[in-house]
């Protein structure tokens, strides 16, 4: 009898685990998700809203891919996990037995107990259902407020602006993502935000959400917000982007150990035998390179899923962190990062072009070896930079052949000379 593996969650971690298990095994693989029938790229939800893509375009694999590769797909809500009986109980009452279970339940947007946070028209953006709700809630509105100066917040602002909805962007910090970026980098992003007509409010938090327009009793739907500076802003929609937390209700209601997330070893095992967790919902027992124990990133979830799939197929491996990398797009400004770049300017070299729309910041150690790099409006070659950072190459080894470290398109304006001059100057 082939091994039966049940995976709860069809996000990137869950399906990558499923795919890599299938590559090496004839196990019976069942993927359970209430969100959608087939896996879709959550990263593209914003493009569906903006009309760049259809819902169907969000699916990386043709629907037939799943049956062709003998995956059992169940669009059901997993209500309960019984680790004694080794069964997943669905909301419909049906029980699915497993030999091994993978929890890849992802994360959920976090709210911070603001009065009115459960009013209509107030939501985060994570799931397909969130996208549907947002489509409905933003019909015909004049202004929206986005709370949270991070990567999702700026995407929400871009989405709303694509429909010419006025946006007020509440950012708690004194500069956008000042915990990650230098003042020049934040300033570059501010310019983008303002160029796209967003009303940026730094040093401002959300205080409360209100629904009482005329003082005659609440309508149940947001009509305005109050900020920490006492200002009242009328709006028809509030986008919450103040972070995500692992989605762990299933584990918490069972004997699976949780903390912030579902606790796992480096080989993704939980405290319960034959139960694993990976992706946004997983929390490593030992810290990762950046010091934290959870890593809620698309790339990390994909890699975790891949490693877990191979482990389930019998390989004796552990999760190995690559040289850290991430990317984003702030309106029209592309961003990539490799390795570790501190927010402070100290120990880093900054190059910025004259127009102020391209920048590179290099983090080096005392010996001049490169530790990390941020690229704004510049494309950086992943393989080259990962090698340079992992092997601790000195800066001049990079500047000697800087073109090989750039991934810019043909005919792009030549920045190599200017870049080399700045990087070599120190």
């Amino acid at each position: 009898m082939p091994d039966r593996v049940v995976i709860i969650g069809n996000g990137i971690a869950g399906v990558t685990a499923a795919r890599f298990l299938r590559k090496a095994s004839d196990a019976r693989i069942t993927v359970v998700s209430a969100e959608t029938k087939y896996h879709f790229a959550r990263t593209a939800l914003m493009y569906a809203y903006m009309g760049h893509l259809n819902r169907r375009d969000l699916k990386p694999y043709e629907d037939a891919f799943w049956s062709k590769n003998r995956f059992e797909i169940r669009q059901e809500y997993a209500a309960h996990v019984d680790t004694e009986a080794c069964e997943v109980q669905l909301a419909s009452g049906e029980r699915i037995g497993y030999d091994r279970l993978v929890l890849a339940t992802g994360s959920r947007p976090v709210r911070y107990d603001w009065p009115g946070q459960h009013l209509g028209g107030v939501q985060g953006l994570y799931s397909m259902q969130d996208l549907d709700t947002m489509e409905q809630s933003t019909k015909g509105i004049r202004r929206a407020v986005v709370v949270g100066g991070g990567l999702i917040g700026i995407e929400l602002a871009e989405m709303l602006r694509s429909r010419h909805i006025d946006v007020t962007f509440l950012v708690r910090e004194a500069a956008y993502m000042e915990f990650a970026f230098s003042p020049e980098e934040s300033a570059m992003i501010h310019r983008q935000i303002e160029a796209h007509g967003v009303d940026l409010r730094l040093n401002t938090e959300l205080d409360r959400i209100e629904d009482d327009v005329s003082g005659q009793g609440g309508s149940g739907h947001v009509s305005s917000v109050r900020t920490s500076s006492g200002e009242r802003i009328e709006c028809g929609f509030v986008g919450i982007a103040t972070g995500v937390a692992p989605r762990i209700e299933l584990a918490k209601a069972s004997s699976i150990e949780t903390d912030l997330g579902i606790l796992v070893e480096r080989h993704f095992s939980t405290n319960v035998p034959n139960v694993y967790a990976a992706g946004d919902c997983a929390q490593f027992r030992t810290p990762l390179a950046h010091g934290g124990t959870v890593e809620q990133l698309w790339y990390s979830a994909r890699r975790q899923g891949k490693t877990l799939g191979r482990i389930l197929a019998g390989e004796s491996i552990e999760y190995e962190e690559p040289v850290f990398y991430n990317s984003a797009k702030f309106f029209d400004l592309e961003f990539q990062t490799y390795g570790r770049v501190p927010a402070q300017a100290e120990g880093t070299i900054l190059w910025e072009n004259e127009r102020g729309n391209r920048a590179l910041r290099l983090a080096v150690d005392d010996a001049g070896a490169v530790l990390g790099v941020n690229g704004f409006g510049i494309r950086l070659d992943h393989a080259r930079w990962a090698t340079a950072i992992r092997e601790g190459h000195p800066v001049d080894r990079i500047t000697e052949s800087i073109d090989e470290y750039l991934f810019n398109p043909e005919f792009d304006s030549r920045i190599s000379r200017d870049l080399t001059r700045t990087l070599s100057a120190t």
Partner: protein
Amino acid sequence: MTEADHSISIADLGRGEAWIDAGYVYRRVAIWLGGAGTVFLVLALFSLPPVRPLPAAVIGILLLTAAATATIAGRRSGSFPIEIPRSRWPGVVTGLGVLGLLVSVAGAGQSYPVPMFWAGTGLLTLGGTWMIVARYSGAKPGLDNDGVKRGDTTNRGALGWMLAIAMTGFYVILYWYPSALEGITRTMDPLAYAISGQPATQWFMYGTFYTLAILVMGVRALYRYRHSRYHVIRTLVLMTVQLVLAYVIPQILVLFNQPEFYFSYFWPLKWTYLWPADFGIGWILSGGGDVGVFMVLWGAIMSFVATPILTYFYGKRWYCSWVCGCGGLAETAGDPFRHLAPRSLDSWRLERWLVHGSLAFIVALTALLWINSALEGGIFGGFSGAAARAYGFLFGAVWAGVIGVGFYPVLGSRIWCRYGCPMAAILGLQQRFFSRFRITTNGGQCISCGNCSAYCEMGIDVRWYAQRGQNIIRASCVGCGVCATVCPRGVLKLENGPRDGRFNGPVLIERDDVGVLSQD
């Protein structure tokens, strides 16, 4: 939720702002079509100049049918956010230009060629350019695909289908009933005399429209992709090649009593250019003289020397998206429809059979014709060159014209290129097996969003490769570069490089996400 949130009117929002409404676009289109149709019917009914009653009546009925279709479709359509233009005048001028063309066709063109040229072609060109400038000149440089997947005309809605029917209908009439277009053709006489010394034919009229379409929609492409140097340069080259090599020069050759030769088209695409005797090169050489000899040699060298060399260094993009006129129209006028290209596995299977079959057929036919010539009619006997050219033309006409262009609004901009063009087939084979071109993917940075696959006009699943960190080398890739432009993380890069290792993923690096990915 209050009613007010859903019932904001145009008056409240003002122009230049997006609005969600089911029927706005349809109502406007229906009003224009209905109004114009009524005018034509009235003119026909009362036999009023400047139009002739029968063509006016036909046009009137067609317009009213279109108006009714638009009205019905509008009632049944869903809602979609649209951008309301800031000023109505560019659209009005364009509409008047279309009206002018219809009035020309209905008889006014023969009677008043010069004014109707300006009232039709002139206003259409002016209005179209104005609409584009108005839409894009104030915008920030950067990708803007907002709403592309929702508009009716560009997503096989009723208006999209109506446009496809109109375009296909134009091609059918152009090839098989050209006298029906006399009205427009005659308005082109002054221009034709000026450039070629001859009166206009329906082909001159067609070539003029084709070139104007590439130029005007080329302006649109330049605006839309101005943040990408590759696109700007490529679009300018396409526009210049079309205007100079595929429009002006052929006509000037006619002016000097030389063959009307297109230097930017060669065998196996323009297959008659290397067919023997009066099936092909006989006609080019018939004028006697060195120019004809030069043209034939040019064709042979381009087909057998320059093409393989350029394709080796640059892939097939040097021709398919930088030089060829079919590509020129696809990248400019076809750009709004690129995402409609069929993308299924089945469409790819069909594509491989058809396009390589087409190449095999043309190669075989060319060989047979040459053998036939050597045997002095031994194979085809009395079958005339004129007939061969006519049949050959028709094959290309139906594929490239009627289906290839007429179906832009339904099947995207590259149907001829994918399913019919023998040049695409041979260039594709070389690109796949013997060239330095590839689209490199940047390690593990792909987020699987799908923009690349959605906007590939050849229906290639670019995402499939990008998310595995694998280079894209596909016979059908024309190197337009749009996938790289729409990618929100800059993961794709068109480049030429050493053939060694072209098919690998990125450099294998142990313990790095990049290296692990390339085993996907």
